[in-house]
């Protein structure tokens, strides 16, 4: 154990207080002196008073036996600080575990709670002078201090931490084996070494999440150091202090202080986390509102084209966008794309793209993509924007250019567009136009990658083959199929059917 008095004393070369040994604290010595003086007198008085009737049966007890009983009593008295610290640590441990139960993403809450619980039981075992339980909980506390340190300092658990677990569990198993009590030092010393390594890792590469808990764990580590007899002999720090006639160990008291500090830090983290969530929720709401304005605008009625669109956002504000813009005389410009990333930033980029498109006077898709690319350079923060633009002129003459987006489908077949780099990556990108002519009744289907990359529970993607198979269905049916398969991202589907006959009837 960390602060097993017998182990500490053994390691520090101090005489161990046994049940039959003389009491060591001032209070205990005071009690013993009083009892030694008073009890024989009491028994003498009792013998005198009962001499007539029971002079042959009542004898004063053996003085040595009495001394042993008193010594046991005072040894127990000496252990009261362990009981006090165990009782103080227990509610702190429970509070940490309750916090973890309600906020599972904070793993450190759980491991700190478990560590303090182990230490609390350990101190109780020390109070009861149980060598077996002391050995068991010493090993368990050594295991959990490593887990706690790694979690609290946000250090990725490596394979060698697994080795520490094995050694600590071996310590638990060997606690039952007579003669192997010396093994108890191995988990303690090993955990001290690993905690030191973890502290050094985090000191060299600080992270904001660990700035408060780091010194607290450092203090605990310092108080555990003297458990190593070599270190203790080199730096003979005082182990104890006396209050109210009771001898208190620094370690357990530091542990209680650490527990209280940990609770304060965790509650602060929870409050900060809640504030961050509220801020993100506000941002999400703003992004959603903006996206609804951008994508929810009514599709213009353009004679000769039947246009359907479906947009199914995922849980976060995504970066899908599309636009249907009249392209005089009598044509239509279809734009669909996806901004990498999510949230308000993606929504702002979508806003910039659609705003720019509406302000542009040219209708040639490749020119439009080049212009958008120049606008987006330096504003996509290491990401990019995929975009496909098709211009359909009267007579069904279609010109399409693509910047890394999914190629559209024509009557269920993928249009063989030349690939092009997404927008916002490099300024000198050029785009190749593909021309074709739609026949009356032909259907073009434009999709976002949320369709192709819909993922089922076993991790299988909807994929390109299945997408092609459903690409001639209605926009609503395609979106529903992808959503049913397993929506992971925004799903946008836009279909356009060329219907020139309707122009004549109009």
């Amino acid at each position, binding site marked *: 154990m960390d602060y097993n008095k017998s182990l500490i004393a053994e390691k520090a070369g101090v005489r161990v207080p046994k049940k039959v040994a003389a009491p060591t604290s001032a209070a205990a010595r005071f009690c013993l002196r009083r009892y030694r003086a008073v009890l024989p007198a009491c028994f003498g008085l009792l013998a005198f008073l009962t001499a007539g009737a029971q002079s042959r049966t009542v004898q004063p007890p053996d003085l040595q036996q009495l001394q042993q009983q008193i010594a046991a009593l005072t040894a127990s008295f000496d252990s009261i600080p362990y009981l006090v610290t165990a009782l103080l640590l227990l509610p702190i441990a429970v509070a940490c575990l309750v916090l973890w139960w309600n906020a599972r993403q904070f793993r450190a809450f759980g491991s700190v709670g478990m560590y303090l619980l182990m230490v609390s039981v350990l101190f109780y075992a020390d109070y009861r002078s149980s060598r077996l339980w002391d050995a068991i909980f010493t090993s368990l506390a050594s295991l959990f201090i490593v887990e706690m340190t790694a979690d609290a300092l946000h250090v990725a658990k490596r394979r060698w931490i697994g080795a520490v677990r094995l050694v600590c569990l071996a310590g638990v198993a060997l606690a039952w084996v007579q003669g192997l009590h010396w093994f108890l030092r191995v988990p303690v010393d090993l955990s001290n070494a690993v905690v030191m390594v973890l502290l050094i890792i985090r000191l060299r590469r600080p992270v904001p999440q660990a700035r408060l808990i780091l010194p607290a764990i450092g203090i605990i580590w310092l108080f555990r150091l003297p458990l190593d007899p070599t270190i203790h002999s080199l730096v003979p720090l005082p182990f104890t202090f006396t209050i109210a006639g009771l001898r208190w160990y620094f370690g357990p008291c530091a542990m209680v202080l650490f527990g209280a500090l940990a609770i304060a830090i965790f509650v602060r983290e929870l409050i900060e986390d809640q504030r961050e969530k509220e801020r993100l929720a506000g941002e999400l709401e703003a992004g959603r509102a903006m996206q609804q304005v951008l994508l929810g605008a009514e599709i213009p009625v353009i004679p000769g084209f039947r246009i359907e669109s479906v947009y199914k956002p995922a849980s976060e504000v995504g970066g899908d966008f599309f636009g249907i813009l009249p392209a005089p005389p009598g044509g239509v410009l279809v734009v669909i794309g*996806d901004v990498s990333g999510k949230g308000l930033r993606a929504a702002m980029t979508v806003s910039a793209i659609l705003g720019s498109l509406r302000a542009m006077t040219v209708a040639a898709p490749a020119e439009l993509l080049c212009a958008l690319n120049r606008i987006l350079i330096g504003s996509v923060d290491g990401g*990019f924007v995929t975009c496909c633009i098709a211009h359909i002129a009267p007579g069904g003459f279609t010109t399409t250019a693509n910047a890394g*987006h999914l190629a559209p489908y024509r009557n269920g077949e993928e249009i063989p567009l030349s*690939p092009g780099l*997404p927008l916002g*990556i490099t300024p000198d990108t050029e785009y190749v136009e593909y021309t074709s002519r739609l026949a009356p009744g032909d259907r073009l289907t434009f999709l976002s990658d949320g369709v192709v990359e819909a993922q089922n529970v076993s991790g299988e993607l909807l994929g*390109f083959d299945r997408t092609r198979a459903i690409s001639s269905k209605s926009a609503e049916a395609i979106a529903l199929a992808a959503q049913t398969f397993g929506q992971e991202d925004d799903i946008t589907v836009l279909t356009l059917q060329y219907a020139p006959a309707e122009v004549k009837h109009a």
Partner: protein
Amino acid sequence: MQAATTVNERTSATASGNPVALLCLGGDISSASKDVVLDAYHRVDTAIASVLLDFTGVGYINSSGIAIVIQLLLEASKAGSRTVGIFGLSPHFQKVFTMVGIPKYAALYSDEASALAVA
């Protein structure tokens, strides 16, 4: 939940005996992978003229991950002294990589043997 990106670096040789640096990627490739991937690329000995990116161990690549790959390829292209090849992609990601124009900057191979035969 995303799996952390790993990069194992090793060297091999082409059929003609030229040294090739292999960066074997693992886990998921996303925005969080940027430093891991680009640092590994920057560690490659400047004397090695061919680099192969092995995606065999990669589970998923999102759009930010693709942006990182493109950034790496553009850097190699601008330097002009090094060729980069890619292998180990699933058919789905082969198509995605083709769609975003990556073949203009890096050849896509089905496996390591065919990559080393041509690189």
